[in-house]
């Protein structure tokens, strides 16, 4: 297949596991012989040399990474460009379609690049496309005013009627239906995450020297449960439990370092900054449990799976997306997202009341079988292959297509801002 990926972010510019997943899938499908092109946004980081030539950093990005103005007018305009329409980005997509002639366009997260107009363009052309949901994209698109969405036939399900939907979890689909009233009548493939364990090393003995070593990795933000982890740590410390907590990742570090200090946790809790995926996996072998008290609507945090694959059992929010794939008490410990339950789970680990070795082995077995990357890739590849059908290149070559996109873009701005 010739597959054109569209993604708002691409490593090394990323927020979390979903962007890494996109890159991993693109790499792996290329390795399987598919012709790949990735259309994504600029990279401002100096370590951009390793990207393959088929990664085209041509799109502009209107939120996530760039400075967001507090001026309401500017912010709303940026939001429009981000979620609804950026004419330049729509043209970049069209040009890549004309050049690359993909059999299918795989849309990952199109927010930040004017995703609504881009998906509309795919529908206009009649090009087979898939939407890989790692977050509630349709909910954000529903936030675009009705009058503007109407221009793109995006009131209700119509926008997605011809797309193959892949979702990281049923939880995410339920959330989209509950919040936006959007379901997918043609169904959706649940393609959960995976763990690439190629950098994993054998796990060290658990609870070495009687100390419980906890680890967390991901964004250092409130919604990821950093506050809960600090509060639970404070309880354990007050109870005299011997433990440590290392947090890897970037985010609101100064705020949380200060918070940890104010709770007198500086000897227990250490913020270690961001690490590459390949560096994190060997590190997990040193820890007894992985903490992931993320918010309930987290569609699919990847890191707990990687930890499970490294025999470091996750403690994770009971109803986040990843929970769908792990069995409580077998592969992980599931908790309600409260300080009490997190502290209780940590205390049980520290007290040796959890068979961490058995749970670690079960987790690793799961990751090497059902949730292996190879199996995941098989499912994605099958879904995409099944959706491919001939389409008429001449439609994409219609010289009036940029003009139609121009009209729709400008009308969208007019209808929204006057």
């Amino acid at each position, binding site marked *: 297949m010739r597959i054109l990926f569209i993604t708002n972010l691409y490593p090394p510019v990323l927020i979390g596991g979903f962007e890494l997943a996109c890159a991993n899938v693109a790499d792996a499908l290329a390795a399987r012989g598919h012709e790949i092109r990735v259309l994504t946004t600029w990279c401002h980081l100096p370590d951009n040399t390793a990207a393959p030539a088929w990664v085209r950093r041509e799109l502009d990005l209107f939120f996530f990474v760039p400075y967001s103005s507090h001026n309401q007018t500017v912010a709303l305009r940026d939001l429009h460009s981000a979620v609804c329409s950026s004419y330049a980005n729509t043209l970049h997509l069209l040009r890549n379609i004309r050049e690359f002639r993909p059999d299918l366009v795989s849309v990952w997260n199109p927010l930040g690049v004017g995703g609504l107009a881009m998906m509309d363009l795919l529908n*206009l052309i009649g090009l087979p496309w898939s939407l890989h949901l790692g977050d509630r994209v349709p909910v954000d698109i529903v936030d675009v005013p009705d009058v503007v969405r109407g221009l793109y036939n995006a009131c209700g399900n119509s926008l997605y009627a011809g797309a193959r939907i892949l979702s990281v979890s049923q939880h995410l689909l339920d959330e989209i239906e509950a919040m936006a009233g959007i379901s997918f009548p043609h169904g959706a493939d649940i393609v959960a995450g995976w763990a690439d364990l190629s950098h994993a090393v054998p796990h060290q003995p658990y609870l070495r020297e009687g100390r419980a070593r906890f680890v967390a990795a991901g964004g250092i933000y409130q919604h990821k449960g950093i506050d809960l982890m600090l509060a639970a740590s404070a309880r354990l410390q007050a109870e005299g439990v011997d433990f440590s907590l290392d947090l890897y990742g970037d985010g609101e570090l100064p705020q949380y370092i200060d918070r940890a200090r104010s709770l007198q946790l500086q000897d227990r809790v250490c913020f270690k900054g961001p690490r590459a995926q390949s560096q994190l996996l060997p590190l997990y072998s040193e820890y007894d449990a992985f903490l992931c008290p993320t918010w309930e609507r987290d569609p699919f945090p990847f890191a707990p799976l990687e930890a499970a694959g490294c025999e470091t059992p996750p403690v994770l929010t009971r109803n986040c997306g990843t929970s769908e794939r792990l069995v409580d008490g077998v592969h992980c410990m599931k908790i309600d997202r409260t300080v009490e339950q997190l502290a209780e789970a940590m205390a049980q680990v520290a007290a040796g009341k959890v068979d961490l070795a058995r749970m670690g082995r079960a987790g690793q077995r799961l990751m090497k079988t059902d949730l292996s990357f190879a199996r995941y890739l098989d499912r994605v590849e099958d879904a995409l292959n099944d959706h491919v059908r001939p389409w008429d290149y001449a439609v994409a070559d219609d010289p009036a297509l940029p003009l139609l996109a121009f009209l729709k873009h400008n009308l969208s701005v007019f209808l929204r801002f006057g």
Partner: protein
Amino acid sequence: MDYIVQALRAAGGFQQCIFSLGKEDRLLQRDGTPVRVLRNESPSSEPVFGYSSAMWRELRGFDLVHLHHSLTVFGAYSLALVRSMGIPIVGTDLGGGERDLMLRGRSIELLDGIVSISQFAYSLLGTSFKGPHEVIIGPVNTESFSPALDPVRDRRRVLCVSRIMPHKGIDRIITVLPPELSLTIVGRVYHEEYYGILQNLAAGKNVTFIIDADDDTLLTLYRTSGLFVQASTAMDIFGNPHAKAELMGLTTLEAMACGLPVVVSETGSLPELIADPRFGRVFHNPAELTNIFRDFVAGAWPEADADVLAREHVTRAHGLEAIGRRLASFYGTVMGEHAKSRHVCASYS
């Protein structure tokens, strides 16, 4: 619109549906033609700023869309949707404003064809649109607008049928109206200040305003007056310019269909309506209108059979059958061209 529907029905071979906007969804019938009113989703009360995304659903399956008011917001929005659906689309500018997006932005080129309601109207678009076009002036229902069977005309009554607005130049008629003639002005008031000026100008002259005439009254006036005048101007009494003062003078055609000789100003499309000086004259300034009135009072103009000539001309060139045939032919050309090319349509069609 109504006349076009009638004309196309006369030509045969088409199933028609009129789409319009309103406060809520409705389905009406007008002489057997469905009129689908879609809920206007625009916050503006101005009709030309209206739009409806229900067109995605409602227009599916149509072979051609003829878009009226094509340069307005309504036109631009509808064009975007219809073009996205891959349906061939013909546009017509009826005035009502225009968006930069359509002309300067050249979105007008998304139309598959243009029907202009006059050469003048086409001249305003011709530099922006190079595709198929047709100039179709009218149509007029010459069965409804016809002379009385036993015509009794007041030869001294001049008739002006026009909305009361500055660019209609009604002040120019009143100013030079000779004492031998009366003037009846039929039209709703859209500009109170201008109406006041006209009333002041009319003081001491035989001028009547009928601002709430119904169709029957209007037809009676066409059938019983002696002369019809339309005096639109590109520069109104307040000194304001009007780029599209007259895209097509439908009332002039109606008057001629009823056998009235007509006088029109040189503005916009109006001279195009005057095919023969025996029943129609064009004036360029008040002095010329004064001279025409003098000729009329003296019986030097029009020709004795002007009523017959005027009606024959309108029936032949602007009647329902003639226009219906031309419109059907043009639609066929556009649909044929569209079928040859590859347009966006795909999953939306």
